[in-house]
C-alpha cells in the first residue's frame, strides 16, 4: 500500500525525522491500516455531500469590543529561547 520512499516523503512533509527502524515499522503498520481504510475508497459516493462539521452553524457574530490580550511576558513564559520580547528560532539557512 505504501512504500519506503512514500513514508520518507510523508515524514518530510510532516517535519518528522524517523529512525531507520521506525521507517520499516511505519511501512508495515501504515500499509495495514490503509488496507482497512481503503474500503471507503471503493465506495460509490457520487452526489453525497461531505460533512466537515456536524452542527449546522451560521456565522457567529459578536460585538467588536476590545478586551485585554495575553500579556507579552505570559506569552513568552514557556518559550524555549525568548529574546528581546520575541520568540527566537534557528536560522532557516544552514550555516
Amino acid at each position, binding site marked *: 500500500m505504501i512504500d519506503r520512499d512514500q513514508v520518507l516523503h510523508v515524514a518530510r512533509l510532516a517535519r518528522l525525522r524517523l529512525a531507520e527502524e521506525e521507517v520499516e515499522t511505519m511501512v508495515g503498520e*501504515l500499509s495495514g491500516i490503509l488496507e482497512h481504510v481503503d474500503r471507503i475508497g471503493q*465506495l460509490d459516493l457520487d452526489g453525497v455531500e461531505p460533512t466537515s462539521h456536524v452542527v449546522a*452553524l451560521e456565522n457567529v457574530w459578536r460585538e467588536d469590543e476590545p478586551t485585554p490580550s495575553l500579556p507579552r511576558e505570559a506569552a513568552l513564559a514557556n518559550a524555549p529561547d525568548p529574546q528581546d520580547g520575541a520568540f527566537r528560532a534557528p536560522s532557516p539557512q544552514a550555516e
Partner: protein
Amino acid sequence: MADPLELTVAEAAAEIAATELSAAEYFAAWRRAAAGDELNAYLWTAPEPNGEHEHLEGSLGGVPIAVKDIFVTRGVPTTAGSRILEGYLPPYTATAVRRLREAGGRVLGKTNMDEFAMGSSNENSAYGPVLNPWDRGRVPGGSSGGSAAAVAGGLAPAALGTDTGGSIRQPASLCGIVGLKPTYGAISRYGMIAFASSLDQCGPLTRDVTDAALVLAALQGRDACDSTSVGIEAGVVAPSREDLSGLRFGVPQLAEEGVEAGVREVFEATLKRIEGLGGEIAEIELPNSELGISAYYVLAPAEASSNLARYDGVRYGVRRGGDGDLLEMYESTRAEGFGAEVKRRIMLGTYALSSGYYEAYYGQAQKVRTRIAEDFDNAFAAVDFVVTPTSPSVAFELGAKTADPLAMYLNDFFTVPMSLAGIPAISIPAGLAVPDGGGAELPVGFQIAAPAFAEQKLLEAAFALETAIGFNREHAASIPWKGANRG
C-alpha cells in the same frame, strides 16, 4: 457518619451545603486518597488549598474533581500525556475548568491519558500506563484512562474527560463507571488541547448517572471563546425517571465478530431489563456504521496532523536540535517529543491530506460521515435511542494489543459512529463478565445514544436503567472505590 469518600458528588455537595460535611476536611480526605495513587492515574495532584478558587456556592459546591491533563489550567502543569509539553505551564484556563470552578468545584488533580488523546488503552502516555483498579494487570481503556481509573479506584469522586471516538465511554466501560459524551457543541472546547477538532468533546466520568447530569449541567453552554459551542438550550437537571414505558430502543444489526461472549450475555440481559421496565426493543439498521472505523481513522488523523503542527519547538514546549538550522530543529523536536502512536497518526493524516490522495481518503471519509449521520437520523425517526455494547471486550491485559495498531483501533467499533454523527451517548455499567481468555469477572458497559441535544431524555432513560441494574449495590463486594476495597 458514613465514609465521606463513598458519597456521590450530588450527596457530598448537598451535605456541604447543609454544613453537615466540612468542605475543607472533605477536600483534604480526597487529597490524601489521590496522593496514595498506585494506578498512575494522576500526573499532578493539587497542593494544600491556598484560598484561590474556594467558594462553596454552586451545584458542585466544595467537591473536588479530577481533570484530564488535556485541559489547560493556568499555572498547573499540562502535558496532554506528551513529552513534547513536559514542563509547560499554561498562561490561561480552559472554559470547562473555569465553569467547574464557578459551580464551586475544585481541581483535585490532572489525570494521565494517552498522548494527545490518541489511544484506547492508556498505554500511549509518555508518563507510563494507567492500571485498571479492577485488575492491575489490565488496561483502564483510553484515552481518558487516568480519569476513569481515578473515579473507579476511589481516587476522585468524579472526573472530566474528552471523547473523540470513544475516549470517555470506552474507559468508563472498562472501569465499571458512567461516562457521558455530550452532543458536539454542548460544552466549550476552549483550552482543550486539540486532537481532532470536528470530533473532540468534553464530558464527565462519574459513579452514577445523577452525577453525570450534575457535572454536565455545570459545564454546558455557549462560550464566546469557542464559536462551535452552542450549549444545551433546554438545560440539564437531575434525572428522576423510574420506568421506560413508551420508549423505543433500537438495536443495530452490526457485525458480531470480535464481541466477547460475556459482553454479549450482559448486553442481552440488559435488553431484557429494558423490556422489564416497559421499554420496547426494535431491530434497526445502521448500514454505514461498519465503515465508521475506516472513516474515523482518516478524518481524526488528518485533523490531528494539522493540529499537531503547532508543536515545533518555537513558542512553548520542548526544543531539541537548536544548534542546527530551523528544519533540523523542527525535525529533532518532533522526533524526540512525540511517541510512536502520535507519529503514526501524523503520518497517516499527512498522507491522507497529501496531493493526489485527498479525494480518495479525506473526501470519501467526509461523505461516509454524512451517510453515518443520515443512518442515525433514519433510526431516530423510528426509535428514541440506539443501544450497543460500549466496547467489544472487557478490560484486556496490558501489552495485549500494543503490537497491532489496527486491533487497538477496533476497540472503538461501537463508539466511533456516534462521534462521527456528533450525537450524545452514555456508557453505564451493566454487569460483570469473564473475559474470553478466562479469569475474574470484569465490568461491561452498555451504550445508549440519543439524537443531538437530547441529553435530558438520554439521562432519564440511563437513570431508570441504572436504578434497575443496581450495579453499585449488586457488586459492592468487588467495586474498587467502595471503602472496604480501596487502596
